[in-house]
Structures are given as C-alpha cells and as structure tokens.
C-alpha cells in the first residue's frame, strides 16, 4: 500500500515485460512486480518526520482523485442499456428504417419497460431502499410526459401503475457519494451504481440483458412494420452494422465500466434467431403490449412480398411467385388475423415471417419440381434440350450449378470472417481493481503481438467490412456493372414444369412427397430433423441448406417450418373436402394425403 502511493504517478511501462506495476525495494529503488526488474528510478524521499499531517492530506487527496478519475459519474445499469438502445436505433435509422421507429416506437417501448419493471416513472421504485434512482440520462427524450403513446392507448388503463410519471427523484449528491463509498469499500464493486443489486436480483424476467436489447429492437421493427426481418437484424449485428458486440465501448468517458458491470454488459456471443424470438415474445407479454399493427398484403412482412424478396435472393424465376401466392392462399397463411402478432391473445405466438416465406418457396419448389433427386433432373434435362441457345426456360440443374459455387464461396467467406471476429474490447474490462493491472497488461501484450504479426503481413488490421445490404448475393446479366455473383434466372419461364391444358396451366409433376406431418409435444421431443436427415433427398437437403444459410438459422428450423406449411396445406385441404362436395377443384394437382410415410403419391 505504501508503495502504491509513491509509484502511482509513475506510469511508464517496464522495459522487460511491459507491465505497469511498480514496487519499491528496501533501498528505495523502483522495481517491476511482475518481472522483478529493478530500474534506475528511485523513490523521492519525503522526510515525514517533521510533517505529521502529511499522511492525512495525501489520503484525502487520493480519495478525491480516485473519485474523479476511476469512478467517473454515477450511473445506473438501465442508463447504460438506454445508451446502447439509442445507438442501435441510430444505426438502424442509418440503415434506412423510418425515423418514427426511434422516437415513437422504440423510445416508448423502453419507457414502458422502465415503468413495468418499476425502474422509473413509478411511485414505487424497485430499489428505493438502497438508491434513489437517478433520472435516466435524457439524451433524446426531454419530456417523459408523453408516455401514453397513441398506439398504446388501447392498453387497459388499469395496468399502468403510476398514472402520471413520477418524477424520478434526483439523487442527492450525498446519497450517491455514500452509496459509492460503501460500494467501493466492499469487495463488490462496479462502475455503475446498481450492478451488484442487478446481478443478484431474482426477478430475471424484468431485467434488461444484452440479448433483450435485440429483442426490443425486433419488437420495435415489427411494430413499425419495417421490412427488416429478424434474420436481417441478426446478420447486421454479426457484420457490425448494428452495435452489439462491445457496444459499451461507445459509452461516454465518465461512464466507467468494471467489476459487476462486466456480467451485465459483456457480450461473448450473438444470440440465435430462436432465442431472440422467444425473448421478444416474453418481453411483449411482460410489457403487456397491445395487438400489433395488422400485416396487410401491402406490408413488406406479408409472406407474398417477402417471398418475392427471397426468390430474388435465391436467384429463382419470378414466375414462381405466382405459384407461391397460390400456396399461400391454399394454406390460408395470408390471412391478416393469422399474421398479425397479438401478445394479449391466449395462444399468442410471435411468428417468424422470414422463415415462413422461405418455407413457402421450398414447398412451391417441391410442388413444381418434386425435389426427389429424380423428377427435377428429368425436367431440367428436358428444359435444356428445348433451350438450345436462348436460355429461356428455367432449368433447375443450371440453377444449381450457378448457385452452388457461389454458396460455397459465401460460406467460406462467412467462416473466414467468423474466425477473424474480434470479441474483446479495446478498453479491457476488469472484474476487480485488484486484477486491473493484470488485465491491462494482458491487453497490451495482445496488442503488441497483433502489431508484431500485422507488420509481417502488412495487411489491414481489421478485416474489411462490407457495406450493409439486404441481399447476400447479386445476380444479374453480364452487361450490368458491379461485381455480380452470376447470371440471373429472374426472367426465365417455367414452361417445362407446367403443362398447358386449355387456357389453364398445370404442373407436369403430378406427385408430391413430404415427411411425417404428425405434430408432437414440443415439451417432450424437440425436432426430428436429425432422424429424418439421412433419408431426405439430396436436392431438397441442399435447398434447405441454401435457405438456412440465407437466413442464418439451423437447417432443422427451416425443415420444421416447411413441415408446418405442409401441415396447414393438408389441414385446409381436408377441411375443404369435408365442407364441400367434390367439384372441379378436386382435380387440382395439389392433392395429397396426410400419411405418415415419407412418400405419398397421387394420380
């Protein structure tokens, strides 16, 4: 302790091991504590014999310094999250989301969260005993009066606890100071005021976490009916266009982050599609959000426009879209009531529009080409024979040959960027003051090593970020400029897959196969993809893989969604059968049985 006082001002790195951890030998020389290297510098001898009071003055000075330098300003965990959410919203606005998203939607959701979790806008704050909650740092919102957003007005009045927002009592300087000093003395320390209480709290549902910021963003985007699906959001997060990994680095200088804060703000993985979806649903229920704005066919989240987008992404012909729409109609997925998310409903579920659209495309492809490793190749052979030069007719084989190498390349690129992803912040987080020097030293060593190796290669220190785009691939004709992944199949016709009879066109493939459609208890068995996978036809599995890569979800989830769509199709079919006597419709080609066998055939 004595030494620290004297060596505090000497911050130079040790020449031997580049640590900054100085001690003083008995002779008064400085030495490095990590490598025991004694250096020239000696302690400035202060004769304390005649100045008894000097110690006291030093101590008081030290405390003041520390408060100013190391502690920074008082802040709460929820303020930190507010800051991160604001950054995320700004990033999303920069990506082209409508400006109302930030101020009207996300901001109000956040306030609602603060109120529901009794962190602010309430007469009964959650941790009133220990700390008075400081007013959230008002960066964007100046007046919390406008809490009851017009959209939320449908929410029952009784649910909101405090009608008028209780003015967050301004934390008195003395209270916070005492709070700090008591915290500082105990082993539990953190940069924020309430991180300790935060991590020991049992109300896990009400606490904000890093994945929940994404869930909240997703809910906001859904409310604003933005064409940004959850898989897009997660991809932008992974590519770094939306701040998430080390988002705390952008905190203002006064907001010091250490100790218990680490557990709250450190990010070591990007949450999965499924988990964010679940969190978002839980969050919506917790916030008691009313029914979301309806998803109309004009809205970009509706399966019909969304599937068109994925058709373009997968380089499939536009003509397929007509068939997708037919499937949507047949399966009854396009209904507004079904698509609109309503957390107040009893069996409410937050659907994944992206997955659904992909599944619709796959089902349509199965209808047209069967995808059983035989029919599609026969059809494409016929198409190729007919094509000769023009390339007018869509051939699945040629499509596969175009997309496959591009997909492989993209997978390699993704793996490369994953391998080179930086997870550790530039300013390291240290769990306690004791470990601070160790952590800082390690960080320095890492940086030096990196510099050492980058000098070798002379390459850019960070892998280059690609500009944000909704599309992962670019398909087009040769004449267009820009780097394209391959020729586009957009305008090709499906002539081979269809057969003209009179004015109507029919599918030339009369059969359809599907895996077992029984629904099982989700509590007992998850998905059966692992069991089914080896028996699936190669083409189908490849298409699943393509869409699973495009959406960034496991293949099993795409397959499960396909099964769900098929299930709905079959259900609707049998319902209609029961209702109406067989008419001309009956002869339609989409006849199938809900047999549990892998393959079914019909005339």
């Amino acid at each position, binding site marked *: 302790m004595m030494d620290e006082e004297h060596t505090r001002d000497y911050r130079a790195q040790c020449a031997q*091991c*580049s*640590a900054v951890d100085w001690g003083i030998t008995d002779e008064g020389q400085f030495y490095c504590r*990590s*490598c*025991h290297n004694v250096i020239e510098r000696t302690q400035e001898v202060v004769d304390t014999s005649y100045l008894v009071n000097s110690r006291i003055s030093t101590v008081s000075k030290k405390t003041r310094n520390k408060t100013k330098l190391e502690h920074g300003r008082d802040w709460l965990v929820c303020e930190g999250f507010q800051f991160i959410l604001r950054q995320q919203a700004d990033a999303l606005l920069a990506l082209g989301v409508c400006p109302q998203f930030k101020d009207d939607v996300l901001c109000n959701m956040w306030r609602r969260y603060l109120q529901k979790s009794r962190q602010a806008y309430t007469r009964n704050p959650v941790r009133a005993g220990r700390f008075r909650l400081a007013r959230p740092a008002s960066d964007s919102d100046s007046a919390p009066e406008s809490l009851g957003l017009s959209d939320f007005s449908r929410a029952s009045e009784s649910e909101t606890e405090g009608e008028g927002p209780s003015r967050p009592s301004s934390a008195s300087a003395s209270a916070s100071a005492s709070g700090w000093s008591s915290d500082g003395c105990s082993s539990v320390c953190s940069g924020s005021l309430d991180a300790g209480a935060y991590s020991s709290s049992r109300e896990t549902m009400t606490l904000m976490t890093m994945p929940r910021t994404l869930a909240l963003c997703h809910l906001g985007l859904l409310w604003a009916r933005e064409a940004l699906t959850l898989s897009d959001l997660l991809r932008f997060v992974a590519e770094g266009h939306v701040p998430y990994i080390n988002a705390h680095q952008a905190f203002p200088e006064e907001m010091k982050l250490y100790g218990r804060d680490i557990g709250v703000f450190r990010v*070591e*993985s*990007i949450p999965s599609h499924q988990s964010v979806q679940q969190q978002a649903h839980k969050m919506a229920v917790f916030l008691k959000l009313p029914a979301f704005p309806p998803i109309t066919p004009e809205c970009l989240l509706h399966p019909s426009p969304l599937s068109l987008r994925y058709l373009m992404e997968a380089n499939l012909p536009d003509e397929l879209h007509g068939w997708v729409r037919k499937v949507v109609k047949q399966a009854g997925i396009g209904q507004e009531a079904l698509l609109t998310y309503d957390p107040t409903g009893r069996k409410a579920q937050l659907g994944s529009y992206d997955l659904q659209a992909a599944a619709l495309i796959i089902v349509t492809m199965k209808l047209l080409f069967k995808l059983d490793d035989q029919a599609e190749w026969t059809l494409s052979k016929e198409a190729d024979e007919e094509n000769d030069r023009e390339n007018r007719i869509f051939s699945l084989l040629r499509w596969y040959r175009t997309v496959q190498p591009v997909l492989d390349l993209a997978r390699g690129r993704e*793996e*490369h960027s*994953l*391998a*080179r*992803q*930086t*997870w*550790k912040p530039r300013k*390291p987080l240290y*769990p306690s003051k004791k470990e601070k020097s160790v*952590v800082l*030293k*390690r*960080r320095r*060593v*890492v940086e*030096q*090593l*990196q510099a*050492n*190796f*980058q*000098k*070798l*290669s*002379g*390459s850019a*220190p960070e892998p280059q970020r690609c500009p944000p785009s909704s599309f992962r691939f670019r398909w087009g004709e040769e004449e267009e400029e820009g780097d394209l992944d391959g020729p586009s199949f957009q305008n090709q016709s499906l002539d081979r897959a269809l057969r003209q009879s009179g004015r109507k066109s029919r599918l030339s493939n009369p059969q359809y196969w599907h895996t077992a459609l029984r629904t099982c208890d989700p509590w007992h068995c998850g998905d059966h993809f692992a069991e089914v996978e080896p028996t699936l036809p190669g083409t189908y599995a490849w298409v699943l893989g393509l869409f699973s890569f495009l959406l960034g979800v496991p293949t099993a989830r795409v397959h499960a969604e396909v099964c769900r769509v098929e299930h709905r199709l079959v259900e609707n079919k049998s319902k209609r059968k029961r209702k109406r006597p067989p008419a001309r419709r009956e002869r339609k080609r989409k006849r199938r049985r809900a047999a549990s066998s892998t393959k079914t055939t019909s005339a």
Partner: protein
Amino acid sequence: MDDIDAEQDISSDELDSSERAQRPSLPLKSQRDQETPFETGFHRTARICLMKIRESLFQLQWQEAADYMSSYFQTLEDTTSGRPQLASEIIWRLGTEILHHHPNTNLEDFNSFLERIKNTSVKTYLEVCLEHSFHLLLNGKFDDAKRQLSIAESWRYGKQSASQEHRIKLVQAYRGFLDYFTWSAKKSSVSGADDSDAAANQEMHNYFRQASVSLKEILQYPGVWDPFVISYVDMLEFYGDEEGALSVLKDYAYDNRFPSNPNAHVYLYQFLKKHKAPEKKLIKALQILHASVPSHELMLELCSLLLQTGRESCFREALTVIFSLLDYSSWKDNLQAWCCMRDVLKLLKRKKLTCFIAEEWESRASWWPAYHFRTNQAKRDFEQSPDLLTAKAGVASALTGRKCMYCMWKNTLLNKAKIKRIKAAKRPLKGRRRSERIRAERIRAERRSERIGAGRSGDRSGSGGAERSGDRSGSAEIGADQGGADQGGAERGGGGAERRSERRSGRGGAERRSERRSGRSGDRSGSGRSGAGRGGAERRSGRIGAGRGGAS
C-alpha cells in the same frame, strides 16, 4: 486439461519408468475441435480460428496463418479458467512455427515475440527461454543464446520456479554445454600458440570448472544426455582424468535408473578402444550393444573381434551376430557385411563346425532365400557391384547348396559381362574408347559402393541434417559442427533414422521380420536411440534437447 500437458506427462512417465513404453496415442484430433452445445460465440471463433491456422500451416501458407494468428491472440484475454494458459502455449508453438517460416521475419520480430510470450505464461517460461536460445544459436548468436540461458537460470517465480526444478536443471546443463564450447574454442587457441599464456589458460580452466559443475549435476539424473556426456568426457580426458571419464561413461551405460540408450554403450566402447583396453572389455561392451541393437554397424567390429579370440564359443557367437545383422533390410546390399559372412562361413567349415551353421540356418531357411537370394535381387546386386554378387553367391552356395538360383544367375551375369568385355576389347579403336568408358564407370560404381559400405557415419550425419533443415533443436546441430562430429548429432540422427526405417519397413520382403525391423533398424546407423517404438515422444523431447523428463 489439455493435450500438451498430457503429452508431457506421458513423456516424463515414460522416461521415469525407464523401460520401453508403448507408442503414446498421438493426439491427432483433440476434443477442442468439436462443437459443444453451449459454446459461446467467442469460443467458436477461437476454435474456428485455430482450425484455420492449422489448415494454413499444413498447406504452408504462412501469410494466411499469420493473418489468422493475429486474430487468435485475443484468446489470451479469455476469462474462462485455464484457457489463457492453454492459449499462450498454443500461440507460442504455432507462432514460432509461423515466424520460423514466414518470408518477412527478422530476428527482432522473433525476439520480441518470444519476450512477450514469456510474459504471458509463467508455466512455460523456462521452455520458451530454452527454445529462444536454440533459435539464437541457429542464427549464430552464441553470446545472446548464452545470455538467454543465464536469464532463465536466475528466474524466480514463487512456486512455479520450485515446481520446475528439473527444467532449471536442464537449462543449467545447456548453459554448461555452451561453456564447454567456449572452453574448446579457448583450448584450440591456447594449443595453437606455443607459449602457454597463463591468463588464457586460467580463463580456460574457469570455463572448464563452470561447465563441469553443471554437466556433472545433470548427469546425476536419469535421462538421455548424449551431448552432455560427450562434452564432459572430452574435458575430463583433456585434463588427464581418464578414470573419472571412464566411471562417468560406465555410470551412463550401466546405471539401471537411466533409460536404455545404445549410444551409451557406443561411447563406452569408443572410449575403451581409444585407450587400448583389452579385447575382453571391448567385446563385453559390444555384446551389450548387440542385445539391444543387433543391427548396429559396430556389430561388424564385434564379429571380427570375436573371430580374433580363436575360441569355438566365440566363433559361434560371431556367426549369430553376423546372421542377425543381415536379417535387417538396411544391410541387405552391404558388401562388407556379406564378405564378413562369407569369411565366417569359410572359417567354420575349415574348423569343421558346420553344425553351428545348420543351427542358425534352421530358423532362417524358410525366408532367407526369398529375402536375399532372389533372381531380381541378383540382378540388382550385379548392377551395384559384381563383388557383392560374388560374395553373396558364395554365402548362398554355402547355405543352400550350389544349385541355387542365385548362384546360377551369378554365373550367367558374370559370363555375360565377360563376353561383353571381350567383345569390346576385340573392337577397333572406336569401340575401345567405349570400353574404356565402361571400365571407368565400373570403377566409379565400385568406389560408390565402397563409400556406401564403409562410410556409414557420413550417411548418418546427413540424415540428421535432412530431417528438418535448420530446426529448433539447434544445439544438437551445433554439437555436430563443433563437438565430436557424430556424437553431437546423434540424437537428431536418431530421429532421421527412425523416419527412414518407417519408410523402409513398408517394402521389406519378409513380413515376419518387418515388425522387429521397423523397431530396430533405425539404430543400425549407430546414431539412433533404441527404438522407433517411442517415436513421437522422442522427437518431441528432442525439441528441447536431450530429453526432458529425465531429471524428475
């Protein structure tokens, strides 16, 4: 915890038990390659990054490996317990490899890299220091290397330094070894000058004292210390302490705590031979060597020594020795060995001791004809040298009778050659020139075969160098340059020989023997340590010098 530690455990256990252990299961695919269900994104990145580094190392793409490596450094900041330790070891080993091969590296990069690594892990501090000094030696920085070792010697870090006692011993031994080099350099300069300069002499003695203290120390511990023993004995010899040198060598060879090491017996034999020890002692030393390495090149000497005694039992033993030597495929086309065999057979026939031959032949009758005396073998032997063909034919006829295929082929081949020669001689001037050329070629071929036969040691040192050009086990290399030429390189030569034997065992004719051959023939060259059986562990220990677990 991690496989590298596990490896170390294996190697040290193996040396402790001082008997030949099974080949350790190689950690080809470790657990860390697989995805775990609750893996964080950070760990996933680390796993994939490591995989990528390995891939690019295998493909010799150093630039790519360096790029991935610079991303991999963040694993040092991992907060999971035990991970940073592991990461620092991985970074140390892979990073050295990359720096070693990358075209843009210079010595400063290497030094600063290793300095940083030393600071990240205390557990491997001494090993990194050792390796650092090896690398400096490779680059000709003798004094820097010595300084590194002194730094490592004076290193103290709480309990860590206590637990790494045997590593410190090794470091000290290497320091002593380098002192020995300084000593021998001084020795040559002092002996070069006529007037013995007192000061220079004194300095030389000081180095001797320093070196001998640490070398003597390390020899107390069981282990394979070939270069140390050689240098220590050399110094003792210089100061006339032959008794001491002999006792050191005897301890090294006969102490049961030490792992069995054929080189120990070789050194002892060479020392005895140099000091004109009685034949009995020489034979005794070689007999022990024969028990462990029947394919050693000194077996020819043993054979001739045994024949010189003139006793019946010794004749019999000589026969066994030469038979078992020729069991190994590496001696298959060695002229000297076959001549020796022919002489032994002749001698025994003269002495009417053919029963011995019959006994030895009994177990080999089933496979030797196919192994040695095939028709195409005869052709190959003839191409190599007609003398070999003749010697082998003599042996074949003695063993299998005159009507064997090999002898018949010998006659045909020699006759053909004779006819050719006569024809060439009959031809006018133009043809004669050609015949002269043929003769010159033949002479050249004979010389080559002689070189192959006699100059085994040259072959060996070559293999040592070829194993891995300019490797980290640099000290051993330098030993080969400065110290006694074969002994220093011995350990590395062992590695090379092992590898060679692996390659060779694939094509060996006699399957029955192939297993034993692959186990032993590595030692044929006299350089190898016993057995490729230990393969992996040995080579690994070779990296930090003369075996590491010994001191424990």
